[in-house]
């Protein structure tokens, strides 16, 4: 398989002049193969969305980035390259479809604005948009195009956003919490839609969510991030059935299930460390039941069977 996106040791610091204010990303390593899905899970504030912004080249100007992002066919991603492929080869969908569209333009105008960037003949745009909306399951495309965002439901808007992202068949789709703002049944439908679109069009996907069960449904490989680092990474099946890192175990223990009626969900005590403070040693140690003096050094990411794990307490 060919690797389509390779992120190596990505670090992001927020600066105030020459001074580093905080370092929310402290070394992210990711690899996505063509046509496959990488799921990125972690709690709020672990740096999932920031990773996506860095890949898209949309970090705020106060951020300083280190490490490399390599995209198949374009080498290392830099601002000049990114301007040409953003949206066309790497597309992105976001959470909160309700605020994703400008309330004063109709959907058609906003999709057209994106389509005009893609070297598509002007005359063919309406036809293309109707086709794209049909592919995300909206047969009533003419009416949708003439609608304003407030006239559509969250699920419909999310479908419109997916259609917008897929106007030019991208090689990589970054989905940042695409189901979080939707209710459970609609979220489930949208997940199914994304899956079937992926099978038809064959794009690779970076699927970001704090919802482990949603990630498990769509991903081939899952990476767990904690406090700006990848702590465990491996094939979805292995990781779900045989989690190694204490943090991953905690996350999986916190999924409610219809089978386990009785008993309490296990919660992870404490909260994600603030990126404002320097983190010494294993970032998860303060919340970890297994932590001891060995954890005062930062654990490296090492191969254990199929998985990559950063923990002193696993496999030794």
């Amino acid at each position, binding site marked *: 398989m060919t690797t389509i996106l390779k992120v190596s040791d990505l670090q992001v610091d927020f600066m105030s002049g020459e001074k580093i204010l905080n370092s929310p990303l402290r070394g992210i390593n990711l690899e996505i193969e063509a046509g496959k899905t990488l799921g990125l899970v972690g709690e709020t504030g672990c740096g999932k969305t920031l990773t996506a912004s860095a890949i898209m080249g949309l970090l705020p100007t106060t951020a300083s980035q280190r490490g490399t992002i390599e995209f198949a066919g374009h080498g290392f991603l830099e601002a000049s390259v990114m301007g040409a492929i953003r949206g066309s080869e790497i597309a*992105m969908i976001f959470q909160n479809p309700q605020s994703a569209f*400008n309330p004063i333009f109709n959907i058609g105008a906003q999709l057209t*604005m994106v389509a005009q960037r893609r070297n598509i003949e002007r005359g063919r745009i309406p036809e293309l948009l109707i086709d794209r909306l049909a592919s995300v399951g909206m047969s009533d495309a003419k009416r949708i195009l003439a609608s304003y965002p407030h006239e559509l439901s969250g699920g419909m808007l999310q479908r419109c956003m997916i259609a917008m992202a897929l106007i030019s068949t991208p090689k990589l789709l970054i989905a940042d919490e695409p189901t979080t703002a939707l209710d459970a049944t609609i979220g489930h439908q949208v997940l199914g839609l994304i899956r079937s679109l992926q099978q038809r069009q064959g794009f690779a996907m970076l699927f970001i969510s704090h919802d482990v069960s949603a990630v498990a449904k769509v991903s081939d490989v899952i990476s767990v991030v904690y406090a700006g680092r990848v702590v465990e990474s491996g094939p979805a099946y292995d990781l779900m059935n045989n989690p190694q890192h204490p943090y991953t175990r905690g996350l999986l223990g916190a999924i409610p299930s219809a089978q386990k009626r009785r008993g309490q969900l296990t919660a992870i005590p404490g909260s994600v460390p603030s990126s404002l403070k320097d983190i010494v040693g294993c970032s998860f140690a303060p919340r970890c039941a297994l932590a001891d003096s060995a954890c005062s050094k930062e654990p490296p990411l090492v191969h254990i069977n199929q998985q990559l794990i950063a923990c002193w307490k696993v496999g030794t």
Partner: protein
Amino acid sequence: MKFLFKDKLTSVASLILLLFVTLAIFGPWIAPFPKEGAGASHVDNSYIGPGWHHLLGTDELGRDLLSRIIYGARPALFIALAVVGFAAIIGTLLGLIAGYRGGWIDNVIMRVSELFLSFPSLLLSLVAVTFLGPGLVNALIALIISWWPWYARLIRVEASIVKSKPYVEISAAMGVPGRTIVLRHILRNVTTPLIVQIAADLGTVILAAGSLAFIGLGSQPPSADWGLMVAQGRNLIFDQWWISTFSGLAIFLAVLAFNILGDALRDHFDPRIARQ
């Protein structure tokens, strides 16, 4: 356009404005003494009080005051539209750049605009005219210089609000270039406050242009300008009261009409701040 006639006050203001626009366009055909309106003097007719032949009387050069006032509508409306138009264009452009780009360029534009705003606008115009020399065009430039910062600041605030909306970020992520985002999303979103501000400013600019003319730094004789006519009549106010009174009344009515319509326009576009 129904809101232009939504109540008695607004209707009257609309009619007054319509009258002034008509006078500005068709003045030479409407004025009873077109030649005098344009400046021809009849010294033997000077200082005739209001009466049947000269409805509003004549001035010191024997010119029919009504014709002069009708001729004055055109420069008054012209200067209002030109000043507000250019100030709005310059201000909007700079405001959009400052609000969208942010950073040092925002700082530079805003500090310069503050520099301009820190002087009372009439004083600033005075200084500018003093440098440029008196005259209609120079007064116009001077007024634009003191007016653009208001637009730049208004648009900058609106632009920076719209800029942080998710749909602008998402447009960027979809590959829509910055120029298109600014022009389509942000400009469209700032249109309403812009229109309201323009409507509110038109009257104020007529007043400011009149003030410059009054102190001799705006339009020069023999052009027909309301501010100039008030100035010419001011020494005679007790004996030949009609000269200053009627030309002042023209300024008063125009400014009042523009202000009332500005309010109506604001209420129409922004119902949240409409008067109860």
